[in-house]
């Protein structure tokens, strides 16, 4: 345990000690604290989306040698606010012939797994909503259901572009989930636990990106596909199928898709940080420097690494053209999957050899 | 520099089998060969095969009023760099010439455009429908009888 307590944990402890006498029953306090955690996660998602919408445009502008948004507020910082107001005040059009309930629920349902996934992110030491024993596996399970709302939106819109987009989303997400899961198994084998905090703590010596570079590569590629971002943005593919499942959505419903996209982007980046980049721990450095930076709370490191990953994904998006659907599938099944399997095998052999070596 | 086929060969040489039905019209840049529409496809095949006029540059039609419609084919030879303008005439009432799609498949849309705007049908065309104008449009605007409506 750190001697200088994290400020956010202090706040949580203070809140708890304040609630304790007020509510009496410790269980009610527990439930209330879960509520607080949920509110905090929602705050992270919304705040993050606000930053990312602006950041993505700025990054795009930077890549395209243009200034990007710079009219609303200083260096365009209030652009997202303006966008949000525009989206909220837009007319919410419901086209004729949509399957009303399914169509209405799709963007809402999309938000549920995204929200649920945030419960297991270790933002810092002890700063985790629920530190499940099966944390990583829980994340994968929850993330696998993201396909359903896309399929719902695609089918219920009663639009052929949307349907094609829904079909693509199923094909793509189901295919890329397998290499995604397999790329993480190597790390799990090294740690011997699925618990998020254990995975991070296991990296106090060396980050897993150095032990599992291939897995990291596979993870980044598969995660790009899972979040439907270029070069794997076939689900939207605006030059082919207009906007895929989102074609018929407008106003607030459409912005929910947008919000979920950025929430997912943050989620996969956070997992990359946790699993490969040492989570909340500062980068490996000599002990003297380590003491010097000890005042920086863990969640700052976590956020810095996560935003670095997000920048990487944005960099991909604004550089690469899109794959074609058959190339996407054959890349996933014929390249990524065998590579991920080989990585697991090599990791297993490596662990065995290491055990023999140190076992004497 | 591309030259007219008729500068290199005489009319008799080029149109030996069809001498009696072929006429040369105009001079200089306006020079054209007029062939009867009954012999059109045969002559075009002859030109494409024996004089390598393999490229149909342009196909259009001119409304000549009383004389009927003139369908104009501008041919080019990519290998030999010849050019030749071939015309055929069809009467106002009939307004039909055979299609040249068997010789140059690329004539498809050009013929449809002529049909659409000039109202000359091409017999044997697989899909003789309007190209640019909507199906329910009445008349053929490039005919001289089609008067433009004045702006209200």
């Amino acid at each position, binding site marked *: 345990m750190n001697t200088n307590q994290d400020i956010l944990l202090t706040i949580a402890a203070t809140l708890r000690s304040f609630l304790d006498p007020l509510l009496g029953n410790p269980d009610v306090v527990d439930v209330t604290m879960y509520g607080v955690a949920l509110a905090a996660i929602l705050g992270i998602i919304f705040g993050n989306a606000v930053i990312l919408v602006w950041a993505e445009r700025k990054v795009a502008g930077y890549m395209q040698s243009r200034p990007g948004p710079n009219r609303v507020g200083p260096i365009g910082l209030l652009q997202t606010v303006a966008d949000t107001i525009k989206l909220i005040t837009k007319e919410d059009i419901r086209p004729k012939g949509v399957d009303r309930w399914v169509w209405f629920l799709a963007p809402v349902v999309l938000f549920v797994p995204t929200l649920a996934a945030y419960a297991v992110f270790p933002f810092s030491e002890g700063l985790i909503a629920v530190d499940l024993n099966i944390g990583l596996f829980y994340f994968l399970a929850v993330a696998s259901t993201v396909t359903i709302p896309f399929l719902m939106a695609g089918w219920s819109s009663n639009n052929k572009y949307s349907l094609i987009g829904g079909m693509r989303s199923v094909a793509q997400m189901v295919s890329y989930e397998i290499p995604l899961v397999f790329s993480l198994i190597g790390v799990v084998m090294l740690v011997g636990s699925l618990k998020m905090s254990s995975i991070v703590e296991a990296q106090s010596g060396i980050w897993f990106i150095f032990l599992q570079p291939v897995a990291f590569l596979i993870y980044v590629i598969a995660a790009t596909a899972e979040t439907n971002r270029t070069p794997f943005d076939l689900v939207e593919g605006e030059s082919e199928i*207009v906007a895929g499942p989102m074609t018929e959505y407008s106003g607030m419903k459409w912005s929910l898709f947008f919000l979920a996209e950025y929430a997912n982007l943050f989620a996969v980046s956070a997992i990359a940080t946790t699993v490969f980049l040492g989570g909340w721990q500062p980068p490996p450095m000599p002990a003297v420097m380590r003491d010097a930076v000890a005042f920086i709370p863990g969640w700052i490191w976590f956020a810095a690494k996560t935003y670095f990953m997000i920048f990487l994904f944005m960099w991909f998006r604004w550089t690469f*053209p899109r794959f074609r659907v058959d190339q996407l599938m054959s890349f996933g099944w014929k390249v990524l999957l065998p590579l991920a399997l080989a990585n697991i095998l090599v990791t297993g052999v490596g662990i065995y050899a290491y055990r023999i070596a140190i076992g004497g | 520099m591309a030259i007219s086929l008729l500068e290199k060969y005489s009319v008799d040489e080029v149109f030996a089998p069809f001498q009696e039905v072929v006429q040369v019209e105009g001079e*200089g*840049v306006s020079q054209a060969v007029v062939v009867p529409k009954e012999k059109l496809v045969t002559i075009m095949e002859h030109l494409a095969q024996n004089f390598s006029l393999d*490229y149909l540059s342009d196909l259009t039609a001119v409304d000549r009023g009383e004389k009927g419609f003139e369908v104009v084919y501008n041919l080019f030879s990519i290998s030999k760099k010849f050019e030749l303008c071939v015309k055929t005439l069809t009467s106002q009432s009939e307004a039909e010439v055979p299609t040249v799609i068997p010789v140059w498949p690329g004539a498809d*849309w050009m013929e449809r455009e002529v049909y659409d705007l000039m109202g000359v049908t091409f017999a044997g065309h697989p899909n003789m429908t309007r*190209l640019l*104008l909507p199906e329910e449009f009445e008349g053929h605007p490039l005919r001289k009888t*089609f008067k*433009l409506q004045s702006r209200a």
Partner: protein
Amino acid sequence: MQTQTFELNMGPQHPATHGVLRVVLELDGEIVVKATPVIGYLHRGIEKICENRTYVQSIPFTDRMDYLSGMNNNLAICQTIEKLMALEIPERAEYIRVITAELNRIASHMITIGVLALDLGGWTGMVYCFRDRERILDLFNSLCGARMTFNYIRVGGVGWDLPEGWLDECRRFLKDLPEMLKTYEDLISGNEILQMRLKGVAPLSAERAIAMSASGAVLRASGVDYDVRKANPYGIYDRFDFEVPLGTSGDNWDRFYLRYLEIIQSARIIEQALEQIPEGPVMAKVPKMIKPPVGEVYHHVENPRGDLGFYLVSDGSPKPYRWHARRPAMINLQLLDELSRGTFIADVVATLGTLDPVLGEVDC
């Protein structure tokens, strides 16, 4: 397994149909069984309008046909009228025409390359192409006050002489061009995903390309050496030393990359023209009211999109009796169906991008 095909109506409102083109796709899953282009949404009846205008008045209409290469269109219609009148035009005007037409070709090809990148999902490549095209549009703007609809090339020469310093600005652009091309190579044509998307897709044989009257880069990508500037030189193109880049298989990659290579050749032509350009008048003696002699003429030039031809019939009056344009984009677009069959939806977009229709010209 028993499956059914279904119909997808792509366009006339669609992000990647380059305007108001509608393509009725019959699909088996994502594979195209049949692609029927439906055109005419932008038909304005320019041919009929021009028959009711004087010859000179028809020049601005050509700007609005292929609006990405107005200079080339102006050049084509003016040379057609001049050919009909047997008019000689001053040397300096000829050189200005070549310089502007080739600059316009570069601008047009930049759009083709950039928009194709965009169609394949590469936003950034498109932005760089448009940024560099802006340089050319600025040049045109300072030359004639318009960025897209120029009406600068006139019957008998050009509208007015070049403004001061224009040639230097043009030289500066040419100096920067290699760096721009390097950027495109890095961002667009050098990208493996883009090459994967284009290579081997929708090949077109040389025989078929000729038979279908294809022209421009579409024809040359199949290996047919037909560039009107070489095959039937107009103006003073026979004085310049340049190559006609040729493809081999006629697939999407060849059609795309040919445009990249053509930019280099156009730059070569401009460089030579800039060296040779003489001083002198820029307008021949042309009567105020142009009345060409009775007759008819077909004249074609190499437009960025292909073989642009004009067929004019004169009855001796101030207005053309018949005014017809052979629009390369429309004739090339015929190939969309046969090239798309058996490919994916995403390939239809790419094929369309490499056929490069401008709907203003297709519909006319």
